[in-house]
């Protein structure tokens, strides 16, 4: 089905099942420990061996020798695979660095070997016996030092009007630089795979957000035909972008299995994950905003520097600045330095998450210079059209409504405009706001829908559920379309033998994958109507029956003993070019800062989101509170510490890379504004999973400033960064 004209009324609009806060259909499995994750397919795979990955001990250079004798002779060892004996390997299209080092080493903890043994304990023990000698090479590991060598990148570059001239003459100006650190996805389930060969065919149970990309890149890496690879990933213990791509667990399991002639399972050990896999790259961002005395933006410029492996890409931190606020004179520019740290890549809301961490502090600073309320300053600089091309409207844009609703609900009027005024005992109190913005991306997505002789519906698609609720919203979609209750729908996901879907990334999954299921259901409805001799436009699917005029047949009868099946995909046309499709929100935060220690505690959080139709308010709300939680991490604690001499992230486990825990998070409120967006898809939905993160850290930073009067522009805002400047204790 091609989607190239705005959606009109369709069966989804009945909202009998879609739009309802139904419990997750996989909830009982997850809460009882019965949902099988990648490392746990013990029913499918028997007689497997265990692989243990050895990571490079240098950041850059060459392997000059490997002594594998002791490891090979160790009890239980079946095989040791290195670049020497792995055979020729290709590289996945989505990978920047190779997934097996040798002889060159591209980054620290890049895999250099996998040791396969009968038991996990034997594999781990023998892995310690692998002796590797290296010739280290000089590398670049420090973004600040490499900044001047960074090259301009065309991606995201834009210029409208005369930015430099307009900024120079603007009556009120801000020119400030912000930094965001390298961050890690730190999902709870490690990257894990079980590989099993059957002749020249390979099946891999894995944990991957994008099945089609993963299967394609695994085939490319192993130099084998794509159709001989099958990926299965029904449950994924979190991804956040860290499982968008093929990673070394799948490759090492496949190579180890080939060498050992046994199925092999590999989980990346936690201390290896952070340097072995991808991370969100650090940025240095310069923001210049010029306004008139009335607070209207006349010039807005955003430049960002980041680094990556040779051949890698930039963190697109300036993207939102092209679209979020008005202003006739605009400039955005990215610069990319070559760094030899581990591969930088997408982490939840790539671009906007770090971009808004900076931009939304800048907006707060600007409001203060103008003596304006930060909500009002944003409101007067709203735009309903793409500011770079004013003939292009936004499909739906309710940023102002988000800000106003949030201000009202949060009690924003109680905020003191002057910082450092509100106190409660030894706590300095402050409130902060930030806008949330994330583009709505759409992706082709396919599905197969079956109707059986019991009137039950089965949906198959290679879409994944990374905690987002895909199982549930897909079941809701099929139930609504076919006129059955949700318990009559079975959803099967995450198998590359199913139709290729949008996958889970870029917050496109919910809207695109359900639209694909919608398309397949339309086809199935038409087939049912045709079979019954009904005019498909008149056929009503309701209560397990299909009706036309005064004829009515149960779906079970219609399907007959053989059942019926339909497959289709949604493909998106030009609507996303003619209309700017984005999602909007506003975050409000109240913090307390201990006047003596500088410790920051979050007291209240509210997000207001306008993101099209909310397919399931319960799971959507969970995505938003989860994102708000990750935003607290970004604001207050998350930072990969770079060893700039040896070139690696030092705090590479869950003890040292701090993420929020229960005690850090208060009760969180989320409001979804009523919205449907007929330009986005027949579902009229958009995404929320990344929107919820965008702007959170800045709202916290602004609240801290409001509490203390000390502006911190370097994330995370740890107490050492403001302790010496806090107001005197009364």
């Amino acid at each position, binding site marked *: 089905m091609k989607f190239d004209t705005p959606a009109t009324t369709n069966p989804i609009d009945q909202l009998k099942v879609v739009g309802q806060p139904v419990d997750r259909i996989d909830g009982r499995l997850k809460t*009882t420990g019965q*949902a099988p*994750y990648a490392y746990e397919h013990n029913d499918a795979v028997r007689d497997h061996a265990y692989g243990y990955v050895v990571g490079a001990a240098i950041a850059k250079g060459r392997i000059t020798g490997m002594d594998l004798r002791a490891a090979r002779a160790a009890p239980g060892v079946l095989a040791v695979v290195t670049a020497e004996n792995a055979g020729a390997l290709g590289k996945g299209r989505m990978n920047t660095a190779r997934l097996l080092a040798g002889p060159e080493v591209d980054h620290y903890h890049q895999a250099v070997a996998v040791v396969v043994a009968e038991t996990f304990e034997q594999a781990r023990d023998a892995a310690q016996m692998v002796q590797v000698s290296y010739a280290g090479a000089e590398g670049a590991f420090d973004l600040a030092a490499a900044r001047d060598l960074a090259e301009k990148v065309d991606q995201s570059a834009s210029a409208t009007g005369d930015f430099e001239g307009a900024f120079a003459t603007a009556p009120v100006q801000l020119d400030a630089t912000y930094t965001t650190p390298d961050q890690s996805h730190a999902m709870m389930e490690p990257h894990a795979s079980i590989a099993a060969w059957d002749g020249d065919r390979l099946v891999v149970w894995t944990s991957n957000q994008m099945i089609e990309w993963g299967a394609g890149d695994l085939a490319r890496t192993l130099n084998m035909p794509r159709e001989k690879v099958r990926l299965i990933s029904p449950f994924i213990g*979190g991804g956040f972008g860290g499982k968008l791509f093929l990673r070394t667990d799948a490759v090492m399991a496949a190579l180890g299995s080939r060498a050992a002639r046994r199925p092999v399972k590999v989980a990346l050990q936690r201390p290896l994950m952070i340097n072995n896999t991808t991370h969100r790259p650090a940025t240095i961002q310069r923001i210049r905003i010029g306004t008139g005395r009335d607070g209207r933006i006349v010039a807005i410029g955003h430049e960002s520097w980041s680094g990556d492996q040779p051949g890698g890409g930039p963190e697109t931190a300036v993207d939102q600045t092209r679209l979020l606020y008005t202003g006739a004179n605009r400039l955005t520019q990215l610069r990319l330095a070559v760094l030899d740290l581990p591969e930088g890549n997408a982490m939840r809301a790539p671009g906007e998450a770090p971009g808004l961490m900076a931009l939304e502090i800048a907006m707060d600073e600007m409001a203060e210079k103008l003596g304006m309320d930060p909500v009002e300053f944003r409101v007067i600089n709203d735009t309903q059209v793409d500011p770079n091309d004013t003939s292009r409207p936004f499909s739906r844009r309710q940023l102002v409504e988000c800000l106003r609703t949030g201000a009202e609900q949060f009690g924003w009027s109680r905020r003191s405009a002057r910082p450092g005024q509100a106190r409660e005992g030894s706590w300095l109190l402050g409130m902060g706001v930030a806008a949330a913005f994330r583009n709505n991306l759409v992706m082709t997505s396919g599905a197969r829908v079956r109707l059986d002789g019991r009137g039950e519906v089965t949906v198959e698609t290679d879409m994944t559920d990374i905690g987002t609720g895909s199982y549930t919203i897909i079941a809701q979609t099929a139930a609504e379309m076919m006129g059955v209750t949700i318990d009559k729908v079975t959803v099967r996901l995450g198998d590359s033998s199913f139709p290729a879907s949008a996958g889970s990334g870029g917050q496109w999954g919910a809207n695109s994958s359900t639209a694909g299921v919608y398309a397949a259901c339309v086809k199935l409805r038409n087939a049912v109507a045709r079979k019954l001799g009904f005019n498909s436009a008149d056929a009503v699917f309701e209560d397990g029956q299909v009706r036309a005029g005064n004829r009515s047949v149960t779906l079970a009868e219609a399907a007959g003993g053989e059942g019926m099946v339909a497959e289709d995909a949604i493909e998106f046309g030009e609507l996303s070019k003619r209309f700017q499709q984005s999602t909007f929100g506003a975050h409000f935060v109240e913090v307390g800062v201990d006047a003596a220690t500088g410790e920051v505690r979050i007291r209240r959080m509210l997000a207001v989101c306008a993101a099209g139709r909310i397919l399931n308010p319960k799971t959507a709300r969970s995505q938003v509170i989860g994102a708000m939680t990750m935003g607290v991490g970004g604001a207050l604690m998350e930072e990969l510490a770079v060893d700039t001499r040896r070139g690696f992230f030092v705090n590479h*486990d869950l003890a040292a890379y701090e993420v929020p825990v*229960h005690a850090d998070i208060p009760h969180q409120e989320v409001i979804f504004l009523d919205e449907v967006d007929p330009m986005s898809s027949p579902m009229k939905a958009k995404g929320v999973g990344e929107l919820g993160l965008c702007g959170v850290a800045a709202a916290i930073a602004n609240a801290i400033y409001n509490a203390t009067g000390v502006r911190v522009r370097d994330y995370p805002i740890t107490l050492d960064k403001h302790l010496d400047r806090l107001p005197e204790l009364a």
Partner: protein
Amino acid sequence: MKLFFTVNGERRDLELDTRTTLLDALREHLHLTGSKKGCDHGQCGACTVMVGGRRINACLTLAVMHQGDEITTIEGLGSPDKLHPMQAAFVKHDGYQCGYCTPGQICSSVAVLEEIKAGIPSHVTADLNARPGLTADEIRERMSGNICRCGAYSNIVDAITEVAEQQA
């Protein structure tokens, strides 16, 4: 070496490498994969199980240290057809997303309510001589060894609070 312990009421006889953790004994040898391995280093709480009624990180203890012990895992609390009240509350309040930390959160939650009932104080208990209250602060503090990167904390506290109120 040979050993036995009781898991979810059933005696299990095993022959294990002395280096095998309790977590791997459960997951890899008994195929009770409800207990999760998030870090294998006592940093995340995904492997939380109960031994003799007290919660522990199963990755931080060797199986051979548990000869004769009574172990309860998530599979022992309830099943999809017969949820434990805490499991049902997690479903109702959407106290999870990806579900990977969830068995650990639920085992911890059940144990936390017992700890509070038993009068065991925590870091946030103001008066060590008084009984700790069933407050959100007490729950958050005691649950802080169970990381949820999906960030379901606010919902998890709602779920635990509801069960605590039902029990009270």
